[in-house]
């Protein structure tokens, strides 16, 4: 059972969290200007790196999305921060 730090609530068990998306995965817009390939890439292509990754997670109990930097190999959690522009 991993333990993740919510920037608002502190360390909690992983069952309280949901993965949302890899960080920096910008939504291509407007729809009319986005090719099928670009949209498919947005929907289905993830980097899924072996090693350090930066991801958006949701803390289900407080409802806040936040940025988590972790290592997929060692399971080390390196950083946890609110979305840009939000004070913890």
């Amino acid at each position, binding site marked *: 059972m991993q333990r993740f730090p919510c920037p608002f609530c502190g360390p909690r068990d992983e069952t309280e969290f949901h993965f949302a998306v890899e960080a920096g995965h910008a939504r*291509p*817009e407007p*729809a*009319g200007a986005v090719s099928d390939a670009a949209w498919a890439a*947005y929907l289905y292509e993830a980097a899924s790196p072996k090693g350090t990754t930066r991801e958006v997670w*949701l803390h289900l109990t407080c409802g806040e*999305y936040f940025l988590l930097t972790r290592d997929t190999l060692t399971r080390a959690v390196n950083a946890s921060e609110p979305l840009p522009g939000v004070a913890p």
Partner: protein
Amino acid sequence: MSGWRHDSLGAEIDRDRPLRFTFDGLSVPGFEGDTLASALMAAGHRILGRSFKYHRPRGLWGLGAEEPNAVFDIRHEGSYLPNARATLSYAQDGMQVASVNAWPSARRDAFGLLDLAQRFLPAGFYYKTFMRLPWRIYEPMIRRMAGLGRVDPDYAPDADGVQISAACDVLVIGAGPAGLAAARAAAEAGKTVWLLEDARHPGGALRWRGGEIDGTPWRDYARDTSQAVEAAGGRVMTDTSLWGAFDHGAFAAWQRGPRPRHWRIRAARCILASGAIERPLWFADNDRPGVQSAEAALHHLALYGSLPGRRILMATDSDHSLPVARALKDAGAEVTVIDRRAEVPEATGLAQITGAGIEAARGRRGVTAALVKGEEIPCDTILCAGGWTPSVHLWCQAGGRLDMDEGRDMLVPRPGTAPMTVIGAATGTLDLAAAVAEGLAAGAGKTPAPKAPKPRARAPLRPDPARPGRQWLDLQNDVTLKDVALAAREGFTSVEHLKRYTTLGMATDQGRLSNFAGLAAMAALTNRSVAETGTTTYRPPFQPVPLSAIAGPARGALYHPLKRLALEEAHRAAGARFRDYGGWLRPSVYGQGDEAALAQSEARTARTTVAIFDASPLGKLEVIGPGAAALLDFTGYVRMSTLRPGRARYGFMLSESGIVYDDGVVLRLGADHFVVSASSSHVEGVRFVLEDARQDRIGRASVFVHDVTQAYVTLTVTGPDARALCRAAGLALPDLPHMGVGEIAYQGARLRVARISFTGDMSYELSVPARHAQTLRARLDAALAAFDGRWIGLEAVMLLRAEKGYVLIGKDTDGSTMPQDLGWDGPRARRDDEYLGKRSLFTPEAASTARRQLVGLRVPEGGQPIRTGAHLIPDTGLRRSLGFVTSSYVSPVLDRPIALALLEGGLQKIGQTVRLFDDGVVREAVVTAPCAYDPEGERLDGRA
């Protein structure tokens, strides 16, 4: 009958407190303090079980969790525990103990003849034999014969297992000398230490070997350590199996005993001192009862005074086991040491045969002789001292890697590959003083220095394929050296394949005795080193743990607690029957008798006069703020910014892949105030979609989302007399059009009225704060009789909505349904702003005319209802699925079956006859619009 009890030895038994238990029906004496293993050995029982595959007689091997053979089903004082290890189970007066995998008893087992068929039961026998034949014929037979312990279907342990979550600074696993030293040092440094031990007492091998720790007699050291640990706020727990090491310092432990507890421990640091297990030796028929671990014999002698026999051979290749032979000799047994070394220390005072090993065991139901240098030596016991295998399971569970230490002939932890410090025998340190030094250093927080390599003294002990006869590697799963050779010949040379093909190491002992020999044998057969061959993956549990301990109270109704209605008791009093609908316990029907008939009758009332149902689980997500309209425009398929205050609009929420995720009505109460009625089972999910858009797009300062679902009770009054009933109940209904929303005062609170219809008839959704639910219900209930109305359950509501062709997301849609497939093409065609899932609605796939679309189906006059799930099939050509029936009912008002289906190109097929494959029968139906009842919507305004 060769085991016996010494008349004075036995440090842990109380001879003043005798007891009796039964083993396979025979009465067995013992003393307080005995394990089942020591009592059975002392009473002379040798055959304690039958082997898994061949039903060969098997006796006791070991002294702890590694025991592969003496596995029992234990019944005592109303409790029942299958697959318990005799070595870890304490004898108690009146216990009923039964051997496993034997019938009627281990002594006389009816399946013993299977061993004669061993030639025909090689590794992979099941895979090879039962592939072509019908498995369902063999399965029950094989299942009956497979497995070890029996489950008693009549025994259900109480769902009251205590579960405790805890945290500590330092977790020390194993209270042998190294673990004790580590715990002591850490506690003295002020740390909160938890010291866990699988056995009954701390001390490890010193319990039977004796000795000093850090200059103090071990008993005193253990006692002082317990005091130091407790004084520093820690805990010492014995009889506790640490069975799993998980991420981020999480561990699971099962504390056995009369009041078992299951622990989840989060440790800042972990010190693993799990010790080592004595390795067997390999010779023909090395599985016979009477062949035992040498260390286990000393354990049983010193702690319980139990000896396995009177004429004992001990095979070894080191000095480490000489104390075993000496102790047995001193206790009165005749002992001969068979030493593989040509040069041995002098003056051991023991009979010795040097430069030799055991080649074969003789005797079928127990050892009668051993073959040494080609000569038969009579004996009743063969003790094996084949070296040591460090217990690295927990290290590997935590992600640790292993290195082959050639000098010590062991796989040892590679430092730095797992977040644990390993000390003592678990890392190959068998020397007492060195192990204690490692413990003290680790406890003080130091990282151990890398070990100096040890030169190899002689060729390692290995199974020898050149020898005749069957050499057993895995006693619990009946795997021999020949099985490994067969696997190698057939190409299963990877250890993971070897394991699955031969089942080596897959038994409940987790391969403690067998894995090393198996992989060493495979390495030799394939000319690879042990390191190259590698090890299989270690997974929890390290020891069998009752599922009831892991589950604790989280069973049955507590496993997934249902949400309950505020008015549940009132509904129950009115005769409601309840069922789980999407996580809510809701009335299915009211009254006694056949549920389907009741639902028909309730639905008929709702169409004729008036009915009330409890719609409280319907989601109520308040979206408030200047950004609310923009938020809902983005998250919804249908625009809500154009909705006027005081009105409601039906819409969908799509996923980014364009699939319909939820549907529901959005109410606009004011310019900046909306209420989203998410489906009752989707409230959480919809809330997080709204939060996502709020936090990452619209801006968290301009809009707030609140889930107030459970703060309100919603009662829906539906039917031609709906308005009249509400007025008769004293509610001053505002004048609302269909899809109008208003509020009235109600007992100092506000009652929200929404004219929203899920049934097709005039409906009023009345929502009040939950504290006013009882009075609202009572008022409406009192008015029902005058209108010949009634309360209706969810079954009738489902039927009413199906008559109207109203979908349930997830039932009438699937993971490929887009809004245009439900006939909602408008926003897709017209909206030019961004919304969730928009781009996905314009892919070639989304534009296809062959998409599965929602339609109604009508069977020919007099036809039976079609089963939900029946597939639509083409008229000609290869049979394939064109879609399937999603909902099917008999409509009481139409007096015929109705059905909804997803059908390829369905919207183009309305009016056509299609074929269905309905549970083996091909039938026909006519495609219709989804709405079967009142397509013009004339009933929405109720009785004039």
